[in-house]
């Protein structure tokens, strides 16, 4: 059943159109940077964008930082929100459940498909970012010596070798993917509550917008550590020296809690609800 769901998802033009749209903005930004040679100053604009002119291998991280606040969560929310509610709206959910596999297995199959979409979407953005970065900007070969200039400098002012940058970039990509699993879990849960994929997607976005808004308020600081978007940008902590693991581990733990609770709630709701369409 998992293979069926995977095949269904990745054969849909909509899935690949979503991923293509995700990559459009980072490509546009790269083109503008090359044409104007005007990168933002360090500390301004999305993280890492200031350094890509001198080191294009950092562009995967810059690309993820560009899409992370809005486009990537929207893409994940659209796909996750459609997983169950889309079948219900199309009138196919009832027929899917006539198979002897059962609701739990169907939910697991949908879950695996959504999770895989998250991983593929993040990887494609990173790979496209790498290709764009290494072809359009000056790039340092992996395994070389310490990079000159600020492009190979950590936030803390220490020099990083290309091998350091590669390792830390891979960890950053993994961290972003885990952060998006929480969004996927919200989408899957909301998708079991409604027959409208748009409603499920809007529910996820409402949660994320509220979380981002509350994070900016000092009055909300007591609940800030529990907001789902609180630690999203902590992937930049891989580029401090020493690496600041505090927020990274908290971010991973928080996503694990959200994923665990929401998937349990999705399972409880989906396996007990009346399916009429």
């Amino acid at each position, binding site marked *: 059943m998992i293979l069926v769901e995977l095949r269904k998802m990745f054969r849909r033009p909509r899935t690949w159109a979503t991923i293509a749209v995700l990559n459009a903005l980072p490509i546009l930004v790269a083109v503008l940077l090359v044409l104007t040679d005007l990168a933002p100053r360090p500390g301004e604009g999305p993280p890492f964008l200031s350094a890509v002119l001198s080191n294009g291998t950092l562009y995967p991280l810059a690309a993820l930082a560009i899409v992370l606040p809005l486009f990537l969560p929207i893409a994940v929310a659209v796909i996750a929100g459609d997983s169950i509610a889309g079948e219900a709206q199309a009138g196919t959910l009832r027929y899917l459940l006539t198979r002897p596999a059962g609701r739990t297995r169907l939910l697991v199959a949908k879950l695996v498909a959504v999770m895989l979409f998250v991983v593929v979407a993040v990887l494609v953005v990173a790979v496209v970012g790498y290709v764009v970065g290494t072809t359009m900007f000056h790039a340092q070969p992996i395994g070389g010596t*310490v990079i000159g*200039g*600020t492009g190979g400098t950590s936030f803390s002012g220490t020099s990083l070798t290309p091998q350091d940058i590669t390792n830390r970039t891979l960890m950053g990509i993994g961290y972003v993917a885990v952060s998006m699993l929480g969004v996927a879990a919200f989408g899957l849960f909301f998708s079991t509550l409604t027959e409208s994929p748009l409603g499920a997607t809007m529910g996820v976005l409402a949660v994320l917008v509220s979380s981002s808004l509350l994070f900016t308020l*000092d009055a909300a600081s007591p609940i800030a550590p529990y907001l789902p978007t609180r630690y999203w940008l902590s992937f*930049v902590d891989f580029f401090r020296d020493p690496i600041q693991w*505090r927020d990274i581990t908290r971010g991973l733990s928080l996503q694990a809690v959200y994923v665990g609770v929401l998937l349990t709630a999705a399972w409880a709701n989906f396996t007990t609800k009346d399916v009429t369409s």
Partner: protein
Amino acid sequence: MRWSVVGVLVVLLASLPALIGALPVSDAAVSAHDLRAAVLASRTVAFSGYAESAGGLALPVTDQLTSVADLFSDRTTMRVWWRGPTDNRVDVVTATGETGTHTGTGGSWTWEYERATATRVAATPLALPAPPDLLPTALGRRLLSEATDAELTRIGARRVAGRDALGLRLTPAEKASSVRRVDVWVDRASGLPLQVQVLGTEGSRTALDTRFLDLDLATPSARTTAFSPPPGAAVRVGKEAEVVLEAGRRIEPVPLPATLVGLPRRHLDGVPAAIGLYGRGVTLLTVAPLPERLSDGLYDSLVQSPAAIVDDTSVRVAAGPVGLMLVEPPDEDPYILTGTVTLDALAAAAARLPGLGSAR
């Protein structure tokens, strides 16, 4: 049944922080005197940690020194590695970069990622306030350094950064003080201040709260605190403190009273002669003649404050426990008065300045 599983899971997870916070904290029979002594002796204790300060002081300033104003009004997140007073590193961490101060023998390096700039600053007797001054360890030692036993009381214990912290309350004896109290929470094992809270006499809001969120008493490596400018970085020499002190030295001294609002005048190394410094501990008052060209901009900035009290010759405003007053006598140069005293005390002090009052 299935929803019960969800309910139990949510309740368990939601109550976890409260359960951890409710873990019993063991107090110790340490006197306030001994606890203060332990704090003052903790300068050489090595540690590393993660701290956060939250300031509620909206200081009215002109275009100069905005970084100092931000320091006391914003939330500042810091990582610190402390091997000793002359070998330490404090990074102010932001979402897109960081500013690190590496202190060594003879001075410090400040690395600003946002500007790709390394700044060398020589050690001076006086320096402008900087983020490392807001660490609970530095601030706690500074605020307790001149406290008397009569001003100190013990206030139980609490858990800070996962460690048992003994409470020490400083209540200033001076009537003019605008600080109601300072609570310092001290690590039982090392004497390091883990949290410092400053409350003003007006309102119930904490004026300044700085605390460790994580603390490790292992000695950090020398490699972590060392610094050399990275390739391609701009390197400059910082002279901001020197410029401010030089401006102070150019001020023509005037005969200031020996005592103001019950606070005796004191002298500190490096303070220009024209600047009058009064008080002790957490109750301090500074008086200085101000060049006419500087007073106009400051006046404009002060009167914009909604809480400003304006009369014929002066304007005064309070930012938490910090009071600031600009006096413009008819036939004299202006004066600026600032410190941790009440606005009434500022007005009383101003009335005794040359050109304004009868007494000298």
